[in-house]
Every structure is written in structure tokens, then in C-alpha cells.
């Protein structure tokens, strides 16, 4: 009858334990090296999101690129979060820049039924939760980018069915 447990117990004080320690040491060293290199490198180039629902706008004076996501197709009368990223000269805008998302139907002279608040996210991101297109038709969406005293607007139309 083989007592595996006792074998194992005996093996813990054998050369196999040393090998296991060496492996763990190698892994930790590798991880540290990796972290070191990553830390020394410049931030990765901004990733421009693409795919269904993503819209790319340039602000009216060409200062900013706005990547805006709204579901495709945009839902009628359902809340969702509009979010995106703003770039300036190819880099995400700084944390100090304010971004304001809004929408409305100029032909009907109204805006969003419930005003939304836009929050900033890291790496040039922004998000506006609770957006709801309460009526079918053409909606005009705007993104205002505010840097100190200056405001510049990007805008675009979406058709809600």
C-alpha cells in the first residue's frame, strides 16, 4: 500500500522544493522587469475606438476630435449612457478640461426631456448617463469642450426611429 501523502510530505524537504522556489523567483523577477520597462515607456498612443455606435466629429474650429458612442440603433424612449473621448492634437484632453454633452430637437424647439450631467473619465473620456430620446425624429447632439474661458462646440445629427 502506497502512502502518497507521506511521500509528498517527505518530498517537501527534497530538491523539488528548491526548483519550485527558483521558478517563483524567476517569475517575480520577470514581472518586476516588465513593470520597470512599462514604467519607463511613454503612454501608449490614444486608441481611437471604432465600430457600430461610434461617431467621429471634429469641433467647429478644428481644435478637438470627439469620439462619441451612442447605441446603434439609438433606442427610442430608453435611457442609456452616451460616452466618448476627446482628443486635442492627437492626445486625450487633460483632466482639467470640461466636457458637456447635450441633445435636442431644434425643429420642435426642445431639448432632452431630463437634463443630463456629463462627467469626466480618465484618458480624455466623458460620460453622460440617463440620456433618453423621448421622441422619434432628428436629434441634434452637441459636445461642448471648455478649457478655461474658451468653449468650442462639436455637433452632429442622429435619426431616431
Amino acid at each position, binding site marked *: 500500500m502506497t502512502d502518497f501523502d507521506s511521500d509528498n510530505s517527505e518530498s517537501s524537504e527534497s530538491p523539488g522544493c528548491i526548483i519550485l522556489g527558483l521558478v517563483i523567483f524567476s517569475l517575480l523577477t520577470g514581472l518586476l522587469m516588465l513593470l520597470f520597462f512599462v514604467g519607463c515607456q511613454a503612454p501608449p498612443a490614444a486608441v481611437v475606438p471604432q465600430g457600430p455606435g461610434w461617431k467621429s466629429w471634429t469641433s*467647429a*474650429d478644428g481644435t478637438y476630435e470627439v469620439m462619441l458612442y451612442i447605441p446603434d440603433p439609438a433606442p427610442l424612449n430608453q435611457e442609456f449612457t452616451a460616452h466618448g473621448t476627446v482628443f486635442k492634437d492627437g492626445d486625450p484632453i487633460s483632466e482639467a478640461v470640461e466636457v458637456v454633452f447635450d441633445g435636442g430637437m*431644434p*425643429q420642435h*424647439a426642445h431639448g432632452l426631456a431630463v437634463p443630463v450631467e456629463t462627467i469626466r473619465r480618465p484618458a480624455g473620456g466623458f460620460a453622460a448617463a440617463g440620456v433618453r430620446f423621448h421622441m422619434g425624429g432628428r436629434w*441634434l447632439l*452637441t459636445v*461642448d469642450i471648455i478649457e*478655461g*474661458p*474658451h*468653449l*468650442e*462646440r462639436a*455637433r452632429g445629427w442622429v435619426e431616431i426611429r
Partner: protein
Amino acid sequence: MNLLWILFLWPGLNANPSAPATVAPTGELVSDLETHLTIGFPLVSRSLAPALPAAICALESGGFALLTQRPARLRFLSSAGALKEESWPLPDLFASPRGIQQLRRGHFIIIDRAGHVGEIDRQGKLVRMLPGPEGKWQAGALSRAPRGVGWLVTDLLHGKLHHLDPDGNVQQSWSGFIEPTGVCSVGDHIWVSDRGWHRLIRFDPRSQQPDPQQGIGDHGAAPGLLASPMGLCAVEDQFLWVSDRDNHRVQFFSGRGFSMHQFGIHSMLPREALGRLHYPTAVAYDEQAAVAAVIEPSERRVQLFGVRDPEVPVAAAELWQRVDLVSHYGRFWAIQPGGRLLVVSEPDSERVSLLVRDLEIPFELDDVGGPGAAPARFRTPMGVDFLPGNDPSRWVVADRGNQRLQMFQVAWKQQPPLRREPALVQLVRSVDMALLVQQHSSWQSSVPPRLAALACGEGGIIAVADDANQRILLLDRKFRPVGQFEAAGLLQEATAISADGSGFLVADAIGGSLLRFEQGQPQPEVIDGDCRMPVGVDRHPDGSIWYTNGANHSLLRIPPEGGEAETILAGGGTGERQLFRPRAVRIDEDGSVWVLDHGNHRGVVIDQNGALRHFGSEPYLPDGGVRMRQLKLQQQKLQEQR
């Protein structure tokens, strides 16, 4: 009888837990309120031309005292409408009076736009000067403080209200207003009318701070809403009259803030009185005679209103009906050089309109704005001009109440048919000028900027008047500071600006001069130092300078070689060659002259051959307008056929 029922039901209908308790109605009060609620019968209209009525108050002995401007004088008007022939000149420091209140000893406290407070006697002689607020300020309105202890004055430069003691020393100040144009005390409460918020802001000075967000009213034409509320007048320490200027009416509010009554409606015919009002700015009330006096500087007159017979129905035209605060042709406009577009600043509706201008009647493609502080909205749009060399076309607007500039563009395809297209106009950018002034060291000032006239020059340089600091700020196309024009002693107010080659022409209505500024030159060139009240200016391609004169409703031309100005249009009226309170003048590359005939709600164009064309509000057109002409032609044809 119905009025009695309304009165007794009123406290229940207006239940408001935060409102102060009011006195229970007595029989006398019922009678008085019934009287107040029937005011509106036009008694008499008195012209003060060429002077402008500037301020009015009721006299304890009955009747009214009123102050005029240009010339600055004190006059008296009885409640029966008799205007005393004698008038007394005001002291020199009070050339632009803004408020008057009677003292018990028969003297008056008066304030001037430039920030002077003084006591005068019944002959207008200065008795004493009062200190008033320290530093630079611009008086907007004057009233008695609650319980009659001292005075209340508003400061338009800083958006402040000050409580002065009887000797004119500041006791307390409140801020947070945009443009406090009127003030009065009702009971223990202070009421401020704010043209920027389009609200009445009520607060108890003992325990509250003014909160415009909790103000009464908002921009609009329905009863209880306001459009540029101006002068206030307390009634029996429980109610108040409000000059609802851009709604061309006077409203009566309860001490709880409910609109109970109104009278007045926009004139249908030019200069029409008899109950019609045109931009009323202040109201005073003789309680004993039950007569309200309303001043209308735009018409240079004062009207008296008395009690209507409650059994006689009010004429339908005077009842409230939904009125859109539509185009009135404000004080500023701009033409697209060599193009087809025209933009008009419309402070009445807090909008800027975009029109196609090369039609007999310009066609409105779109407008932008609405009241408020959100981007692309306005609080008193002022100067406007197209940026040169932009495709799509861009223009810049000075948004005075929001202390910012806004730039718009329109990508309009010039294809028929013309149709109105909402949101055709796009906001490009804006800049918070108050913040920009703080950030830019050479622009810093103790008084926040107050933006007015504007022009865009060569290279996209934008020149905007900062009336609060007697200077012109210069910015580039991205709204970055690039310089400023100042001229101590020469420039008092840049009432109008236009691009002139590498410089700018400036009309200074206060200083009565035409100036030309050039970047890099320390002093402006004085083109005309004695032209009374220039309110619009531009350079003609032939080198001549054209300007409008607000003092005598005229358009003048200074030849290219200089010398005496030639009168082109003149005379206060609606005739073909007349103007009424003209403002902006813009001249196209082809030499056509575009005059904004603000007081007539119309535009006047003089083409290269000297032919005149008018467009705008039809009753104000020389022959009733195109539609009237078409109607007459149709009638003629019908008669011929018969």
C-alpha cells in the same frame, strides 16, 4: 363686484408658505385695490421732445416730478396732465439722470448714470452731494429703503444693490444681479427688477440674500412673465407696478409676486399713444388721484393712465393675447461683405436673426439664441459683425449679460427655394470675457467688462467695446487677446465700431466724436470732435465716412477730403427720407448703405444710385410696405376689370 370676490379669494389662491403674512383686507383696502386693478384708461400723452424722460416719481402733494436728459432738467406734471412750462436745469454732474425720489422737505434725491448722488431743491439747484458707493459705479435705479430709512441704489457695472443711509453712506450691499434696472421696497422686502434674468428678485434684507434663481417671472409675454423689466413703483407698501419694457406694458404685482393686472400694448401705428406703450422704462403712481404716469424715452413722452369704468369692456386689442417677442430690429446689425447675408441683433427676444438680404423683403433663414446663459443663448445680444474671409460664413456677437463673445457659422447653400431651417446656425466657440480679462494681465481691471459694440477687421481682428472701462479690447479669431485701444479723455464710450482698413472707426455718442484707432498708434485720429451723438459709423468704398446721429434722427456723410458733413436722411418720422432713433450703419463693398432705423423697426438701404429701399415692420414703412402696395394694386386691377 367680481373684483371683490377675487380679492377675498386671492390669499387662498396664492397660498405660499414661504411668503410673508400680509395685512387682512379692510374695506378701505378693498376699495383701493379695486381701484388699482382698473388702472389703464389712457388720460393724456405729453411729449417732451427733443428731451428724453429719464426718471419719474410721484409727489406727496399729488402729481409727478420728472427728470429729462438732453437737456437734463427737472419738470413737474400734474395728475390731470398739465405739464408745467417752467423747467429747471439740473446741476452739471447730473447730465444723465437715472432716478429721483422726493424728500419730506420738498427737495429731491437724484442719481446720475455716472454714479453721482445729490440733493436738489424744487428749482433743480444742488443742495448737497451725497457720497454714495465708493469707486467706479453706474447708477441704474433709486428708491426708498424699507421703512423709509435711507435709499436703495443699483449699480449696473457690478450688478449690485446698495443701501445708503439718509446721508448717502453705504450701509449694506448685495450682489448676484446681472443688470438691476429697477428697485423698490414693499413692506419689509426689497424688490429688484433684473433685465438680465428677466425676473423680479424679492428678499428680506434682515434675513435673506437675494437669490435670482428664486426670482419671480421669466422671459416671456404671458401675464406674470417679463421681458426686460425696468422701473418699479411700490403701491400702499403692499403691491407694485413693474415697467415690463420689451412687452410694452405695465404689470401690477401683489406683494407675494402674483401678476394681478396689466395695461398697455405695443403701438400698432408709429408714435401712437392713447394707451399704447412703446418701451416704457419707469412708472410712478399718484395713489390719491389713482393716476399712473409712464415714461417712454423711445417716444420722448410721458403718458398718464387713470381708472377704467369697470362696466365697460376693454377693447379686444388691449386684452392679453399670445405675443411672440419677434423681430424689432435692435441696435446692431451686420452685412456679409459682398455676400447675401444679414445678421440682426434682437435684444427684445434675446436672439440674433440670420436673413438673406438681397431681396425686397429680406428672408429670415434661421435665428439663434433664447434667454439664458447656456452656450448659444443670450442675455442682451449687442454688437455683431461678420468675420472677413471665412467659408462657411462666420460672425461674432457680444453677449453683454453673459459677459462673453460667441462665434457662429452658417453653411448655407445658396439654392432656391428659400426656406427656414432650424439649427442652420451653428455655435463655433465662445469666450468668457470676465475670466479672460482676469487671466490676461494687461487687461485686468477693477470693473468687470461690459460688452457692447463690435467689429471684425483685417486679419480677423475682433474689436469689442468694454463700456465699463472706456476701452476697446482686441482679440484674434480664436478669441485670444491681442491688444486694446484706450484714449483717456478722448474715448468715453465706443457706441459703434466698424472695420476701416487696418484700423477701426469708432462713434462715441457720449463724447460726441468720431475717432479712428490703428494698432500701434498711441492716440486715435479725431475725425470729428463735435458731432453731437454719433451712434453708427462706417467707411464708404469712395472714402467718405457715413454716420448716424441719434440726437436728431439723421444720417450724415463726411466727404473723403473731410470738411462739413452732408445730411443724407433726416427728421424724426417714418417718411421715405426720415429716420427715428437710427443706430447701426453698414456699407457694402458695392457702396450700398444699410441703415438700421431702430426706432422705426425697419431697415433702410441706399443703393449705389441713391435709390431708397425700406423693409421691416409694415406700419412703419413709408407707404405701408410691399404687401400694402400689392393690395392696392390688386384693388386697382379689380376696379379696372369692373
